[in-house]
């Protein structure tokens, strides 16, 4: 399959020949940023549309279908409307923090998005502690939510923000443990190496039982990290009006809305990267003809296919289960997920040391 590394090196050398090195670096940075933000927005639009149609399918309804053929222009009309909405200035709020909060959430989301490997060589950020960096970058999204709740000067927002803070900090732990299990299996934290390693078999098959347990734990904690049902207490619609973003209107709310969907994409992307092989095609050792055929499908199609499958799984969970109460959320994490996660890590280590993996 195509190796984007060669294309990128070609662009790099042509830029370096046209202008001094520092200017070339600047141009490259701008290009990378534009591509990342562009991809971010495109996927956000696809995700919002997908959510509405998937939700309608589960609920025996039709979903948007009047705006453009099959309703594909619906999200664009939502975006136009959001852009021109009045941004209300709250009188007694903490101005700086109030305006900063949506940007923090989007920033954390964008940084983690840049680390996803779309195809061989098509990755914005790639260095030796990739996975660890993703975990660190995604955790400062919590700050944005807490600031939003605090600075709105609204009691409901405060309750929503505190619930969210407690929930997200707890589930960081399980997420970290399940990722660590896979790092033990692969031996490296660099994302491109993780995926290269999976070209001879996806980790979820090679790591058999511990990897499957880690996958389930990762899906649950990923759900909790993005505040999606059944963990959507912070914005529990029927309890707290709109939770921590009650006092935001117009673009501020728009940023929270987009960041929620993109966080879901990122969680799914990381799940497909470390468990389901990223852009690596399906590989069964021994069936060379099959593997050859699988390689014809481009890497980006593999990656997006797996990611959207995981997203569909998350949406299915969302539209089926009721909401958990905050004490149940925390009990689930601290009494069940953390001990199981630690035990799983131990089992995986034993398997790797004894060579009991494929």
């Amino acid at each position, binding site marked *: 399959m195509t190796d984007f590394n060669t294309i990128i090196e070609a662009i790099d050398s042509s830029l370096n020949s046209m202008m001094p090195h520092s200017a070339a670096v600047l141009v490259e940075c701008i290009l990378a940023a534009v591509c990342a933000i562009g991809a971010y927005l495109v996927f956000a639009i696809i995700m919002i549309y997908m959510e509405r149609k998937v939700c309608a399918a589960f609920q*025996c309804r039709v979903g948007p279908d009047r705006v453009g053929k099959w309703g594909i222009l619906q999200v664009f009309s939502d975006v136009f409307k959001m852009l021109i909405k009045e941004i209300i200035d709250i009188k007694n709020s903490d101005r700086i923090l109030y305006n900063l909060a949506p940007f923090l959430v989007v920033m954390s989301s964008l940084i983690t998005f840049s680390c996803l490997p779309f195809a061989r060589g098509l990755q914005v950020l790639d260095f030796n502690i990739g996975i660890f960096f993703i975990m660190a970058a995604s955790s400062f999204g919590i700050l944005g939510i807490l600031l939003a709740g605090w600075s709105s000067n609204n009691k409901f927002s405060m*309750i929503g923000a505190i619930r969210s803070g407690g929930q997200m900090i707890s589930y960081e732990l399980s997420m970290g443990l399940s990722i660590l299990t896979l790092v033990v299996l692969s031996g490296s934290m660099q994302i491109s190496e993780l995926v290269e390693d999976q070209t001879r078999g996806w980790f979820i098959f090679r790591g058999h039982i511990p990897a499957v347990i880690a996958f389930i734990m990762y899906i649950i904690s990923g759900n909790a990290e993005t505040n999606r049902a059944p963990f959507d207490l912070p914005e529990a619609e029927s309890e707290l*009006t709109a939770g921590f973003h009650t006092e935001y209107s117009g673009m501020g709310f728009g940023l929270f809305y987009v960041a929620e969907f993109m966080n879901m994409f990122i969680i799914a992307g990381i799940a497909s990267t470390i468990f389901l092989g990223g852009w690596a095609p399906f590989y069964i050792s021994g069936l060379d003809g099959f593997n050859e055929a699988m390689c014809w499908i481009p890497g980006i199609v593999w990656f997006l296919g797996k990611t959207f499958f995981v997203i569909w799984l998350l949406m299915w969970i969302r539209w*089926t*289960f*009721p909401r958990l109460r905050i004490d149940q959320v925390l009990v689930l994490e601290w009494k069940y997920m953390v001990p199981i996660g630690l035990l799983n890590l131990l089992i995986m280590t034993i398997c790797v040391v004894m060579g009991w993996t494929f």
Partner: protein
Amino acid sequence: MMEVTFVEIEEFRSTMIHLHRKGMDFLREMIGMDWNEEGLGAIYILENSDTHECTEIAVRTTDRENPELPSVSDLWMVAEFYEREVFDFYGIRFTGHHDLRRLFLRKDWVGHPLRKDYDTSEEINPIRMESEPVEEFSREYDIKDDKELAEKVEKLKILHYDQYTVNIGPQHPATHGVLHFHLSLEGEEVRKVDIHCGYIHRGIEKLCESRTYPQTLAFTDRLDYLSAHQNRHALCMCIENAMGLEVTERVQYIRTIMDELQRIDSHLLMYSCMAMDMGAITGFIYGFREREKILDIMEEVTGGRLIQNYNVIGGVQADITPGFAQKVKEYCNDQKKRIREYYDVFVNNVIFTNRAKGVGVLTRNDAISFGATGGTGRASGWACDVRKRHPYAMYGKVDFKEIIHTGGDSYDRLLVRLEEIMQSIHIIEQLIDNIPEGDFRTKTKPIIKLPEGRFTASVEGSRGEFGVFIESRGDKTPYRMKFRPTGLPLIAAAHKIMKGCKIADLITIGASLDYVIPDIDR
């Protein structure tokens, strides 16, 4: 016709204590009255929850400037709210009541509306656009030594204001309507709850006093709109019994079948709204899908989906259509299969059982003292179904089980209603093929006048016992018409069972109690 025993004020409390000890532990209704020259007062309808024997006691005072009566709120817990309502509408101060504030109207409202000499002019009570003044302290009245009525000097705080107080409502995601919960929180736990009603108080009882009897029928559908048939059935039954009018058996069959269809509709909506409140929006959509099928049947027969205007004095508005029996049977068969789905998707889900089991427990004695009838009472172990206690229409002749659970928590309350759907289908199946021929409407005089006296009738609405009380002076308009709210006892019970729960539990309890606000506020 109802026989009411009048008691003097001095003997009132001892009579009530005596009756309470004798076993009259269910205060069914308390009706505030303005008898012009004879004074202001109240009628109490009591019932023994074991033997179903009823007594009616009344008491009045001729003092119109500062009327006062003794309170019975320590004997029956629901009296706390009934007396607040009578204070609100008539101005009668109940001595010994711990928290005598207005219930429905604004704190700065001038006058007492249901008095016969109330001035309805705009200048006295304009549309006030200031927020209501917040009352921090409750009020208790007492008779001082020199026989003067005075407010107690020591005041009790309603909520702890040095704690986190939050308002849930009145504008709240659309399920239950406009109810205002004033909470004091400690973290996630609710320390105390104070419920403010009256945001949809439309003054129906006062309006009825200036409408003829056929005109008053229009209001019943709009009270508890999910028991539209049952409410109108109660009022028609009351007027027909008072007039001595017999309806044909065909009418009784039709009324029973439509009541049961309405009950299924309401329980499906309760299930849907509970699912939505808990976050399972798909459950909501599935419940509504089944509900649409009932609405189709009703629309074909009555012309309306929600407000049906079907029962009239003497019968029903129009005969049932020829395909009615076939459609109802098809629907019943379909519903029996679908109900399995509700259990699979929502009720047996581990998240829901953890959130609902053990939450908001209402004991049997509390349920009786609060008068919380309907599914709530039956989930606490109290057999309070009016269809069994005082049978009416065809209920004495069909065979059905009264669903009783003993846990009294939110889970049981949902289970009771889902099982009642199956019982309603069972009743319908016994009746649908045997509807006798006959007139669908008995002819009445164009102007209906009830004889003088007091009349009452009760039916089992979807949410509890719905009672109608009419006091007539022989005119074509009622002197006083009172509807027993099915929801006010539930709100009274909510004050007690919501204490100490978490915010998320408050939502669960509210959804499982299943109140409809226009029915509380009237």
